[in-house]
């Protein structure tokens, strides 16, 4: 009973111990925030890239894509692990949006069934979650033809979905994106560069121009995609790039995205799909002009994921070193308290306390400091992580500092979730560290001779 009583008394009266409590709290907060942001970033990265790219991708390694993708899809769909497949076409293009925005973009042609394969449908604003994905014009919207196109049937133009960054949409201070209604009335002039597979060099045929109306915007959260990508119907893009089936050539696609059923093993299915691709390749005699590779989404982003994981480990190690400094701080403060309380230790021993009992006072003291410090650190860490985007905006607003640059970190939003496993681990380590910091002073207190302690000056 005396241990608890003295621990609580010392906690209230010895203000110097509050320094160690604050040290534990700050360390816990710091590590929690850093690990949560880094871990959250990695998690967001994995989720987003998995979400927008499917689980496995059959990629054409050149800009001309590869033929016989329908046969490949048909066979791949027969695999029990496969949930859905969809082809897509990728190209580089130039856009002129209402004579206001002119820039180079990546153009992706999506078929309607893409909604079954990746999370593109969920990134849309007006057609959020709508499957199959459609590029139809907005009903009841009045489209005015641009100069030089008066009298033409502008409603026959295809719809285009733009990345939010392409049209300069940004989040306001409350985190919402303001979309001016005029945006959906702007014509987009898209210029494409079809490339012939029949030449030994990059042979750009004459450029293709086509007009589109913006029918929706996509916000995947991946900055590099949202700022640089426009989406058009698969068939239109395939036709404009001259990748459609001709008299003597089969239709081509740039990629086949494949979604797997839950529980399927990525590497195993990838190997099966690779076998199918090779089989089709041999059967259809697809030549070396069309290099193809099969990769999981992890393979595609391995370099980046590896770098982020290493960065996370590095930051964890750095903060572990800082935490060791905190342990030393606790050690020093507790040692000081033990020296200062030497006579009290003698008194307690003279009244019948055992050596372990005395050690228990200081270990318990360390434990309470650890529990309180880690608890307060958890609270502070949670508040910071939860409101990190608002804090970041406030810092930017009042101090003009932008710590989180979406161009570097890929996402426009700082991750603000905590992983329960990481939280439990960090809090436990903080508590154990506090007890360890108090261990040596506790041993010293325990081994003090009662008479020598009573005579301590």
């Amino acid at each position, binding site marked *: *009973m005396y241990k608890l009583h003295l621990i609580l008394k010392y906690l209230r009266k010895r203000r110097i111990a509050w320094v160690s409590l604050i040290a534990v709290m700050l360390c816990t907060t710091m590590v929690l925030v850093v690990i949560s942001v880094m871990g959250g970033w990695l998690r967001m990265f994995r989720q987003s890239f998995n979400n927008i790219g499917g689980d496995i991708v059959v990629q054409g390694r050149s800009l001309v894509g590869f033929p016989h993708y329908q046969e490949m899809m048909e066979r791949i769909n027969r695999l029990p692990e496969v949930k859905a497949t969809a082809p897509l076409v990728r190209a580089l293009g130039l856009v002129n949006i209402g004579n206001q925005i002119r820039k180079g973009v990546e153009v992706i042609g999506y078929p309607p069934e893409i909604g079954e394969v990746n999370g593109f449908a969920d990134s849309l604003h007006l057609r959020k979650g709508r499957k199959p994905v459609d590029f139809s014009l907005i009903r009841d919207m009045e489209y005015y033809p641009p100069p030089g196109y008066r009298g033409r049937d502008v409603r026959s133009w295809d719809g285009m979905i733009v990345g939010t960054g392409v049209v300069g949409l940004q989040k306001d201070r409350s985190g919402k994106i303001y979309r001016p209604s005029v945006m959906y009335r702007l014509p987009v002039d898209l210029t494409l560069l079809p490339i012939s597979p029949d030449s030994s060099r990059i042979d750009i045929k004459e450029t293709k121009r086509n007009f589109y109306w913006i029918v929706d915007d996509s916000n995947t959260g991946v900055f590099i995609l949202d700022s640089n990508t426009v989406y058009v119907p698969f068939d239109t893009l395939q036709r404009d790039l001259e990748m459609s089936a001709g008299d003597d050539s089969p239709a081509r696609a740039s990629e086949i995205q494949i979604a797997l059923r839950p529980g399927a093993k990525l590497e195993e299915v990838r190997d099966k799909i690779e076998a199918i691709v090779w089989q089709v390749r041999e059967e259809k005699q697809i030549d070396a002009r069309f290099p193809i590779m099969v990769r999981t989404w992890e393979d595609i982003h391995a370099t980046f994921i590896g770098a982020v994981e290493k960065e996370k480990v590095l930051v964890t190690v750095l903060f572990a070193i800082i935490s060791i400094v905190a342990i030393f701080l606790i050690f020093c403060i507790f040692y000081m308290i033990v020296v200062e309380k030497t006579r009290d230790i003698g*008194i307690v021993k*003279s009244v*019948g*306390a055992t050596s*372990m009992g005395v050690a228990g006072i200081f270990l318990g003291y360390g434990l309470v400091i650890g529990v309180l410090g880690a608890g307060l650190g958890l609270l502070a860490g949670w508040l910071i992580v939860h409101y990190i985007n608002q804090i970041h905006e406030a810092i930017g607003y009042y101090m003009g500092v932008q710590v989180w640059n979406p161009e570097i970190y890929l996402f426009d939003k700082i991750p603000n979730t905590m992983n329960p496993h990481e939280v439990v681990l960090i809090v436990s380590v903080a508590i154990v560290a506090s007890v360890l910091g108090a261990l040596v002073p506790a*041993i010293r207190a325990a081994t003090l001779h*009662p008479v020598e302690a009573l005579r301590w000056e």
Partner: protein
Amino acid sequence: MDPRLKNQRSEIEDRDDVILRASGIAKSYRMGDARVEVLRQVDLSIRRGEFVAIEGRSGSGKSTLLHILGALESIDGGSLSFQGRDYSRHTVQSSGMFARLATNRWTNRAKWGFLAAFMICSVVDRVSQDLDIRPLTIACLVAFHVLLFANLGVRLVQAVWADAMERPLARLRNREFGFVFQFYHLLPELNVLENTLLGRMIEHSWLNYWPRRRQLVQRATQVLRQLGLEHRLKHKPSQLSGGERQRVAIARALLNDPQVLFADEPTGNLDAETGRQIMALLEALHREQGQTIVMVTHDRAIARQADRVLLLKDGRLTVDTGPSTEKMCDGR
């Protein structure tokens, strides 16, 4: 030994109500390279209900003897028994060669020396292009850690071992003995009531204490009231006078109904009037409640208030006035 002293001692020892017995007690301290013998072959018996004063000059060993009797100090030789039970064997003995080596002053210096050497080697290793002293750097770091953890481990084992050995002594100090010190020795963070209850808090675990708390607080308040401190229950020691602090120390010692009350110069830090009050209090405790008291003092006038006075000179008991039957009470 003086034959008269010997006869008196054997007369006391023959009685079956001896509560505390010390025979052949020897104690020495190391001071630098020299060894100072503080107690030499001290034999002593104290009867239940007796008020014994140990008188002697400063440095004569009287406080050491009191600490030894009160199980606060270990002995080099001899034996101690309380109510016939030996408690001298519970003192901590040598910790072994490895332990001595690990906690040795030179080992400690070597440990920090290795750390310093590691730092110097690290810097030299980085700066120098020609010297390859990495193995030496690693060796210094390993040596430092080996000594550090050996020292820590030995101290941990020592603490556990000391605890196991001293547990019976701690129980004795908690339940059978009470202490009143010259400098009061109250915990500054606790108030008067909490200081008084300290022994009881140590005796009971958290679970056992709470059901009895009201009863224990009542008992402590009663003892403090008897000592005239009922209006000071919530005061801190720093808010009390010297005499009041000493009375709190007496209350703390009395709360566990000790078999023996040890008082180490209880009036040494008080003015004459307050000192007289404290002595009157002790005398009343002895007379009215039959409390066995062993008191250490250098003041002859105070020593004379006891039933029996032992004179300690150069670590030896030279005079024992013997039990004064007219002053001694019948015991409890």
